[in-house]
């Protein structure tokens, strides 16, 4: 699988996209202290007033500015590490916890799996964004900017809740996947030879599970991003919502999904499609697109690997035919691999 991916230009293009965004975003934090330039009014060299924010995209400000005068290009660069970081953290935490819970349970009897499926069935049809909204909204709406808790505590709590809400489905998936592997012949042999569960997992299950994990990781990444977008549309921005006068609300972090929700309210209320709304929308569309593209390349590499494995395993008829044609019975059997 690794060899296929290393030769895949599309896979490298996706990695380049994510890598560039992260490098630029972290560089902005390190070299510019995470600052975003603000331009309220635009004046010519002789001091004549030209325009006020939101400014249209131009050669000086590539993506224009928002109503508060924030340079949208810098907003997007500053927010990239948050959006990608949150989705990566949640996807990683979900997978790690699901493995920790699911793998030991997979080694137990089938009845336990049936009971767990019975218990968690309710979780499998309820939209996560709806439950997350109900759980988080009362705690994450702030009226006084001075009363907002620290960023770390807000981020930690929100990541924890979003991780836990997506956990039941993933636990069930890993139990099912591991149980399927445990039913394979090679696992029966490993058990007969006396391999302990932790040994069986380390040596036999893990190498088979790893390619699936990378695909599941990207799926969780996209799913988390979609939940963040949905929540921001419902008025719950990542890291909390600052309630302003006349029912308006603003995000506390320059995170992409939150910016999208923030500008979406302005877009519906004030004007038809404008750059304020289009910039985060296109940025998110690209992020989802590249994440999905990466997932599809991983799936392709995994599929090719499985095809290689199945085509290199000789059938009984092939083995018999090969043995019948041996000039010397102790020569190694040479079976040509099917293309």
């Amino acid at each position, binding site marked *: 699988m690794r060899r296929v991916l290393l030769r895949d230009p599309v896979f490298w293009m996706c990695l380049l996209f994510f890598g560039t965004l992260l490098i630029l975003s972290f560089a902005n934090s390190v070299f510019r202290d995470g600052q975003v330039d603000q331009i309220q009014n635009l004046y010519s060299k002789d001091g004549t007033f030209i325009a006020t924010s939101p400014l249209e995209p131009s050669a000086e400000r590539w993506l224009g500015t928002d109503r508060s005068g924030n340079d949208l290009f810098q907003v997007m660069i500053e927010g990239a590490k948050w959006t990608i970081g949150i989705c990566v953290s949640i996807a990683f935490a979900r997978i790690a916890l699901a493995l920790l819970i699911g793998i030991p349970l997979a080694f137990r009897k089938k009845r336990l799996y049936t009971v767990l499926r*019975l*218990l*968690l*069935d*309710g*979780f*499998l*049809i*309820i*939209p*996560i*964004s*709806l*439950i997350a*909204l*109900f*759980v*988080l*909204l*009362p*705690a994450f709406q702030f009226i006084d900017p001075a009363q907002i*808790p620290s960023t770390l*505590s*807000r981020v930690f*709590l929100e990541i924890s*809740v979003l991780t836990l809400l997506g956990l039941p*489905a993933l636990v069930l998936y890993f139990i099912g996947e591991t149980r399927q592997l445990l039913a394979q012949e090679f696992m029966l042999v490993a058990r007969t030879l006396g391999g302990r569960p932790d040994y069986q997992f380390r040596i036999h299950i893990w190498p088979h599970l790893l390619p699936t994990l990378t695909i599941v990781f990207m799926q969780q990444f*996209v799913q988390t991003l*979609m*939940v963040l*977008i*949905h929540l921001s*549309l*419902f008025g719950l921005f990542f890291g909390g919502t600052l309630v302003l006068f006349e029912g308006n609300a603003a995000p506390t972090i320059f995170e992409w999904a939150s910016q999208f929700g923030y500008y979406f309210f302005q877009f519906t209320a004030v004007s*038809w*499609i404008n750059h304020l709304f289009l910039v985060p*929308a296109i940025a998110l*569309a690209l992020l*989802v*697109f590249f994440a*999905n*593209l990466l997932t*599809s390349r991983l799936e392709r590499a995994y599929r090719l690997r499985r095809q290689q494995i199945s085509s290199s395993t000789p059938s009984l008829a092939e083995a018999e035919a090969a043995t019948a044609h041996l000039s010397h019975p102790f020569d190694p059997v040479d079976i040509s691999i099917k293309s």
Partner: protein
Amino acid sequence: MSSFIIRKTIQLVFAFLVLVGISALPGLIVQMRPDFPGYFKMVQQQLGLLTTSAPLTYYNVTASEKRPLMPDLQPFIQETLVIFTSALICSSVVALLYAFLFYRTGSKTRSILTQSARLLEMIPDLFWIIVSQSIIVFLFKTTGFNKIEIAGGFADSIRFLPILTLSLTTVFFFIKWLTGRIQEEQSASYLELARAKGIHSSRLFWQQLMPNLFYRFYLFFRTNTITIMSSLVVIEYAFNVQGLFRFILINQDFSVLLVLLLLIYVPFFILDTVAELCIPRSWKGEIS
């Protein structure tokens, strides 16, 4: 049969308890901290709602008063049901026709079909919503055509665009699964035998392949219901559909949440039971 009834009853009771637990989750976090005593109090309150004989009430935000839930909720349930089932029927029919086309075409056309379906599948639901609204507005601005609503109101129901966008979200989902399974099954021995007997490819598809995929398709649909439901939530919100999810987003009440969870779960539970009972064993891959 009796063991089936017992198993299903236990499943229903467990599911009800879990749903009560989920509906009480909003009481878990108070002022940025987990509040477990508050959560258990909320669970008790929700259980009380389930066991009481009195009609359920909710706080109506628009009217600023407590109102009985049931007659108020009925039109919203109806609207959601119409959009969900219509979209599901549309996407299933389109996906089946696409799969038939895919089955009958050669490898070159197949490759083009697969690539384009894969590309379109990567587009998230929200962007279908925005694109469809933009096209309608563009159409209105250029031609004056105003027969299609881009957002609903309290008295006006909007159906066309929500059904279209939900269908678009789900159809690529279905297509991906169906085409993948067709490629897998194509070299199966029962199809080889049928082909050798001279059965026409369209008969082969509808009478041999489809019954074998039907139950697996149903299971695939069930495991991905959560994604379809999530899309429906955001579609109802964005198009201002007077549906169940929009209702709960406006009236964020514990009793409404509990009823919503039950309203989603119970039909699927019934559907599962019917599928388990009615789908022939041979279609499930068992020996009849």
